[in-house]
């Protein structure tokens, strides 16, 4: 399932299309979302030596699903030219104190978009 590229020189017309339409990152999967708004989730503890969009500062932290964004292709595998691995993306809300400890403001929150493969159930 390696991702192949066309390896053609981008024309002015192609560049205009890319500028105006961009790249559609939506994907399709038959699976239902694993999580719903309000669910508590834990960002996985994992340290891949390859590409990942799961930042270290949230790994192992517990947050709440704030929004289900729908299905998107998975950057972590695309960055290695592997499978597009479409899956759900969720906006996860973390209390700043749960990430940084009591020095953080109790009124600060972090919202970060994470994929099914980044999340565990609590």
């Amino acid at each position, binding site marked *: 399932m390696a991702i192949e*590229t*066309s390896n053609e020189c981008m024309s002015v017309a*192609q560049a205009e299309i*890319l500028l105006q339409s961009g*790249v559609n990152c939506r994907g399709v999967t038959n699976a239902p979302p694993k999580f719903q708004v309000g669910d508590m989730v834990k960002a996985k503890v994992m340290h891949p030596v390859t*590409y990942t969009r799961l*930042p270290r*500062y949230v790994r192992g932290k517990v947050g709440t699903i704030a929004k289900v964004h729908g299905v998107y292709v998975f950057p972590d595998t695309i*960055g290695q*030219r592997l499978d597009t691995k479409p899956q759900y993306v969720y906006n996860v809300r973390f209390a700043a104190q749960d990430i940084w400890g009591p020095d953080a403001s109790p009124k600060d929150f972090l919202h970060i978009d994470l994929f099914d493969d980044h999340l565990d159930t609590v």
Partner: protein
Amino acid sequence: MNGPHDMGGMHGMGPIPIEADESVFHSQWEAKVFAMSFATFCNYFPVDETRHASERMPPGDYLTSSYYERWLYALELLITEHNLVTPEEIEQRIAKLSQEEY
């Protein structure tokens, strides 16, 4: 990868460098690096592959480079890894252009 790019929460980075009336590019080479990279997006390299390529810059270099220096690193890494251009060709062309200047 646990690289220097993953910097959320790091300390010691100093004040935010706010520039008034900043131009889009600060030099011609920045504009060219940006445009060459953009022109390879999708057709040659998935955008995430280019992001990952900049993360692969050695940590010491990453933390002492500018934004478009990291883009240049990524572009050069990918065009050489995918055998579009060899490192020797780049060095030879630099030498040639350098001679022409003097």
